[in-house]
């Protein structure tokens, strides 16, 4: 069958930096084609060219055999190319139908809405979606919002579907459902392109995989013919082994969470009687579907949210939740999930960000006079020790750092003094394999030096890899605990069966 979409020798530069160099691939109707690669490999860029958001500097694009020039999103839609972005393009205040109507356009509101509803219900039935179409989209779950996005592109008549990291924010089960849907759409004759960095998905669902690295396409093959380590080598360019390193010296309980209860910003109680301990010298990993209280637990531990009840006792330092207790001054280090929100100030310099940790301690001058030279020296030393790259000097804005280097800066600051307890919340999200490895190594080093590490991550693989003990969090409490090495399926089952 002739390919639905062929991209040949596509190149694209941004301000001199080559994001794509002669990249190309071909997607056929009826197949799920995976576009695999690390962050920054160019997958999203290539797809943004396909859906009209970027114009290529060179190369050609053919849709159903015909040479085309895609000038903008409208042109792409006309060609039947529809993209579900990683960050959904939805108007949260609108209902699903209004969102679809907005994308599709109409000359008259009432009539347009009726037409959209009819088409949407048709697709829902065909795909087995149960979706409330007239609730504001902002109130729907992430998986439901994704379905609205899929409906949107289908109603617009897309026959070439591109999904950008669709399972990034879904649970294992939701991801399975989504990929089943993709299978159905492919069987109907659509060409489905799956942009992902998850090797497991590729092996299970893709009919064909194209691997990208450094802006180029390095391989295009049948995933069944390749082993996982083959795929990894293609993606990373070198063999990287993911091995567990068990704890050597587990001590007494250091962090005790007792009947902790907390609410979300909108008042809903999501943390309910969370009780568990983390011992010195171990990594305790909390696995769980997002939205079960993990974020609130992290925020309470960091000291930015007050609990409704309960306590967090740090051995020798009392209740961390008590009024006026500063976690940092008693040896708590935190790597938050929301880096831009809680960990770094992008508009300030790297040095200022680094100094924020210890500025009250007197290390960088007194209340009367800040010692800028001490700050600069300490920052330079830390950047060298923790391999923070990509900045010419510590006075550069922290916002210029890449994700991996920014996270290393956070780790450098938090680990400036050997911590007694560490909170690591989604520490490798958005990081490439090498940077993630560096962060994991630091966590293990802190563990081996006797710290109690609390790891919270929605990436089950990360939890399984790093943790010495695993707690499954569901509905705001720990419902099951596992010793590692643990069975992936057993943990996954515990995650969903208490939902």
């Amino acid at each position, binding site marked *: 069958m002739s390919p639905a979409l062929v991209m040949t020798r596509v190149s694209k530069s*941004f*301000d001199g*930096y080559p*994001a794509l160099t002669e990249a190309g691939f071909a997607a056929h109707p009826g197949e799920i084609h995976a576009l695999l690669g690390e*962050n*920054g490999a160019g997958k999203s860029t290539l797809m943004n060219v396909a859906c*009209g958001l970027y114009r290529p500097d060179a190369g050609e694009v053919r*849709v159903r055999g015909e*040479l*085309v*020039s*895609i*000038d*903008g999103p*409208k*042109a*792409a839609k*006309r*060609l039947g190319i529809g993209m579900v972005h990683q960050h959904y393009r939805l108007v949260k205040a609108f209902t699903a139908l209004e969102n679809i109507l907005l994308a599709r356009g109409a000359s008259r509101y009432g009539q347009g809405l009726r037409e959209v509803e009819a088409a949407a219900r048709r697709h829902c039935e065909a795909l087995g979606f149960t979706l409330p179409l007239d609730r504001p989209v902002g109130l729907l779950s992430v998986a439901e919002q994704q379905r609205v996005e899929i409906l949107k592109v289908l109603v617009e008549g897309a026959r070439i579907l591109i999904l950008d990291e669709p399972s990034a924010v879904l649970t294992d089960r939701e991801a399975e459902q989504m990929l089943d849907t993709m299978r159905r759409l492919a069987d109907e004759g659509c060409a489905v392109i799956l942009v992902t960095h998850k090797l497991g998905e590729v092996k299970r669902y893709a009919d064909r995989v194209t691997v990208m690295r450094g802006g180029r396409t390095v391989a295009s093959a049948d995933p069944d013919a390749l082993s996982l380590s083959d795929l990894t080598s293609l993606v990373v360019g070198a063999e990287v082994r993911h091995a567990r390193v068990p704890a050597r010296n587990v001590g007494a309980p250091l962090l005790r969470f007792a009947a902790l209860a907390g609410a979300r910003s909108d008042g809903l109680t999501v943390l309910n009687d969370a009780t568990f301990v983390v011992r010195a010298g171990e990594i305790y990993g909390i696995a769980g579907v997002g939205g079960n209280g993990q974020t609130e637990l992290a925020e309470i531990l*960091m*000291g*930015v949210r007050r609990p409704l009840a309960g306590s967090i006792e740090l051995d020798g330092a009392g209740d961390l939740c008590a009024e006026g207790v*500063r*976690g*940092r*001054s008693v040896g708590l280090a*935190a790597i*938050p999930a929301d*880096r*831009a*929100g*809680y*960990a*770094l*100030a*992008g*508009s*300030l310099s790297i040095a*200022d960000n680094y*100094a*924020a*940790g210890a*500025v*009250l301690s007197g290390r960088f*001058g007194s*209340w*009367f*006079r*800040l010692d800028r030279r001490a700050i600069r020296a300490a920052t330079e030393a830390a950047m060298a020790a923790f391999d923070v790259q*990509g900045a010419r000097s510590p006075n*550069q*804005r922290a*916002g*210029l*750092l*890449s*994700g*991996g280097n*920014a996270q290393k800066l956070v780790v450098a600051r938090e680990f400036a003094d050997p911590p007694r307890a560490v909170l690591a919340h989604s520490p490798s999200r*958005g990081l490439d394999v090498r940077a993630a490895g560096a962060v994991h190594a630091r966590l293990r080093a802190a563990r081996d030096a006797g710290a109690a590490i609390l790891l919270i991550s929605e990436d089950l693989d990360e939890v399984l890899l790093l943790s010495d003990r695993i707690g499954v969090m569901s509905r705001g409490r720990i419902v099951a605990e596992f010793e590692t090495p643990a069975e992936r399926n057993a943990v996954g089952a515990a995650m969903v069966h208490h939902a």
Partner: protein
Amino acid sequence: MDVPSKTVPQPVREARAGSHDGAARPSRRRGRLSIEIRQHASARLQGVVLAGGLLAGLTCAAAILLAAGVGLPNLVQEFVVSIVTSPESVAAVLVQGAPLAVVGLAAALAFRVRFWNIGIEGQMISGAIAATVVAIHDIGPPALRLPLMLAAAALGGSTWILGPVLLRLRIGLNEIISTLLLNYVAFNALLHLLYGPWRDPENNFPNSQLYEPFEQLAELGWQNLTWALPLAVALLLGGWWLLSVSRFGFLTRIAEANPRMGEAQGLPMTRVILAATLVSGALAGIAGFMICAGAEHRLTQSFASGYGFSGILIAFLARNSAPGVLVVALFVGTLFVAGQSLQVFYQIPASAVQLLQAVIVLCVAASDFFIRHRLRWLR
């Protein structure tokens, strides 16, 4: 902070010159304007753009004055020549500049912690009223009267900003509206006092009785400069120390850039914001005291008029830095003094000076575009 992984400045918009509704045909090679968010702006670029914006603003201002009937030679005379040559003009600029610098500092402090203090005039009025209470009711011995008035003014100004800042911290009430509304409330309170219990029996104007000599800021001996000027300099020095040298200044930078990060690091963000805004209010109150005790020697109806926006203007142009406030305050003082001459000799109303100020601010704000974005013409 979703920065692409290799410090790539992504093009954030590609506006097509003469874009057509993309049909599926090969496009003709048209030029297009690309607008990207600039990742880093050197100090030199910022200086050049700021100067450019100022120049543009001054040109527009000059154009407005010319259109209003002021001849070009007169313009040059008033704004440039006499300012530097005539001692009276220099003194007038310094006299004007002192309270302007203090309100500029007040605005800068508040803006530094992202608190839009639009209520400077109200705080000036409360400060001046508090100082006048001390004067009229003869509180304290004469030797201490002035310091007491100063303290009362600071207290009055702080109190007037306390409500809005607490409302913002506790219930999230937008401070722009709350501080602004309190301006009107303060002004009406002032009118009530000046037309009522504090009205000067000796004349029928709405102002208070003259302050006693020991309740007035003494003259320095040259022209009509008073101790208001050294006071302003001292406050500016203190402001510089607070913002640029002390640890508190560092904490305000964090409060400005990412208060949530500050909280996560265990830094007392709320207390920093509270302290900065209270000092801001106090400074505004002191500025009110400076004008009443230094220049007018009594409480009048319109002493604070125009200082609110001037403070905002000064802080904005000075980018919230103390040395910048000094420079810009002198510049605005020049504007005011020249404006007064224009009023007297050319019948240009006082509102014209306000117009000129607004034009200059808008030009500088617009020029900021070139600092924050990079424009390229792509082929």
